[in-house]
């Protein structure tokens, strides 16, 4: 994607939202920086058909530049304090205003999809598979013979 004023605002918006959605903590989960949320989301946007790409990019530009209209605070979204942005995200999800809820849902869905598809996150949640796929950029571990039809829980004996 070309480096323009608008693509920089999109990246700022993605970063500003990702930081509050996937913050670092003591739970060991990879944060937004470790999962390269901005770079990977920009790459993903580049793969979308034009109309959808424009719509999603518009959403991030709107978040980044219209923070005052969304009652987050003055200035660009990504430059507002973490706590204010966090409160805004929590508020939008339960807002009585449909467009706030829609925005929160769209941000959550889009960025969660990117976050959860990072190999480090898949490793953190303990994902594994029953066979090795030829194209698995997530590097999911494979545990053969883990399923069984002969046990009450469907797992082979000895598997927890």
């Amino acid at each position, binding site marked *: 994607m070309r480096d323009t004023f608008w693509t920089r605002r999109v990246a700022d918006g993605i970063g500003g939202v990702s930081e509050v959605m996937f913050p670092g*903590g003591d739970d060991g989960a990879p944060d937004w920086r470790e999962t390269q949320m901005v770079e990977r989301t920009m790459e993903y946007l580049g793969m979308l058909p034009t109309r959808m790409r424009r719509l999603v990019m518009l959403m991030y530009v709107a978040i980044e530049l219209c923070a005052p209209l969304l009652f987050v605070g003055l200035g660009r979204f990504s430059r507002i304090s973490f706590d204010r942005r966090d409160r805004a995200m929590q508020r939008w999800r339960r807002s009585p205003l449909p467009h706030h809820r829609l925005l929160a849902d769209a941000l959550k869905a889009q960025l969660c999809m990117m976050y*959860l598809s990072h190999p480090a996150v898949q490793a953190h949640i303990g994902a594994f598979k029953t066979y090795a796929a030829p194209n698995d950029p997530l590097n999911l571990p494979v545990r053969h013979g883990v399923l069984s039809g002969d046990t009450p829980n469907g797992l082979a004996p000895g598997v927890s």
Partner: protein
Amino acid sequence: MIHELDALRDGFEIEADAVVIGTGAGGAIAAANLAEAGMKVVCLEAGPRVRPEDMTRDAPKFLAKYFWDGGLRLLEGTAPIPSMQGRCLGGSTVSNSAIMLKLPDYVRQEWIDDDGLTHLRDEAFDRAFERVFLETKTAPTPMDVQGPRNLIIRDALEAMGIDSYPLPRAVDGCKGAADCIVGCASGAKQSVDRSVLPRAIEHGAEVYTCAHVDRITMDGDRATGVTGRVVDPDGRRDVATFTVRAPHVVVAAGAMGTPVILQMSRINPGRQVGNNLEAHVAGGVVGVTHEPLHPWIGASQGWGAIDPNTPGLKYESLWADPSVMLVKWGGVGRPFMRRLRDIDHATVGAVVYRGKTWGSVRPRRDGSPKMKLYIKRSDAHVVLKAMKLMSDGLLRCGARYVFPGLMPGVVEEMTSERDTAAMLSPRLHAGHLPMTGNHVFCSCRMTGDPRTGAVDLDGRVRGTKGLWVCDASLFPSPSAVNPQATVMAMSDLISRGIGGLAA
């Protein structure tokens, strides 16, 4: 033979006996039957071919490349509802869970009595189902690939007094990797590109991928072929144009694509094309247990049940990659990060209901479909009640908590039947359902009465010659079960009629 992008960059202009638009459940069957009947058949697919090595487990990238609108397609109307439709050789059969259920008898009777589909009385319809079940190797999901995530849904339904069973699917040798949504790289899933299109090719059909049809060409009331664009799936750029001339045109572009192609071609008998869009009303809950369920293993949708008390209500287990499955779950920020480890203990119980929805499909200026769908509050309440039942069942089976999606007045972590009772609040409506509208139909209805449907009982578009429809847009009303088998059976009947094969 399958023609791919690199061979099509200069466009093409060809003649055939029949052209089939779309290679999903309906199109593949039509192409195979017409080719078997001795016709020179050309199949056109808007998306690319997906080989096992293309089936990346990175779900967002798979969706971006092999789904319409990059997987971000929305139904507008009551609320924005995601609708995922495959855009690749094999259509949505490449990325769905391959559930194959016969049209329930009461729906069939309703189609006969209320919609005038009198030909469905005939045993030929039963034989059509038998043929598609055989060709797709449909069988109940084996116990040895259910895994704990599916089995706890069985237990939850049993706890609520509902008989359930392993879902029949078009899968042969399932590995239980829950990869259905990103294709099945193991080759077990019998998507139509693997199970049906080879028969078409064996009988001489030529399959063109990356070929997006814009219009059907007409000479008076007679269809004469199609025109369209060769589209690069990476970036979706147009690289060339194409023309296919054929006296038989079969449209099988799905309930969203078919009405758009017809309307763009100014074919709209009785102004019925694109009207009457319907979808199954759906919902689901995430149950989190004490013991790990390892949701990433086990068949994607291995277990299900038909509600004995509410016609048209169905329960099923469900899983896809967490990046697609859990986009609403768990809150945001630190609460979400803390809950991440719960995913290993999660299962999803889905609910599908044959309500009475209504909507439309219209072409946008760029030729893409604009869909509207409206859902009655009373239908939403049926689904909410079923979600409560599923939640209660999971809690009785020891779930730590159940997440119902975000609903006013309902806690995010329901731990008791008192909590789940909040889902019965009359304040809630369809906009609160955690719904995906993947089962869509009825946008070019087949009916006995020309005033209520654009397509006649032979599958022919009314007022035209040489033009048929063979996909879910034909359904006069929702099928109450996953539509794939019914689409294939109806397409089988129609295309056998065109080709003169015994039904």
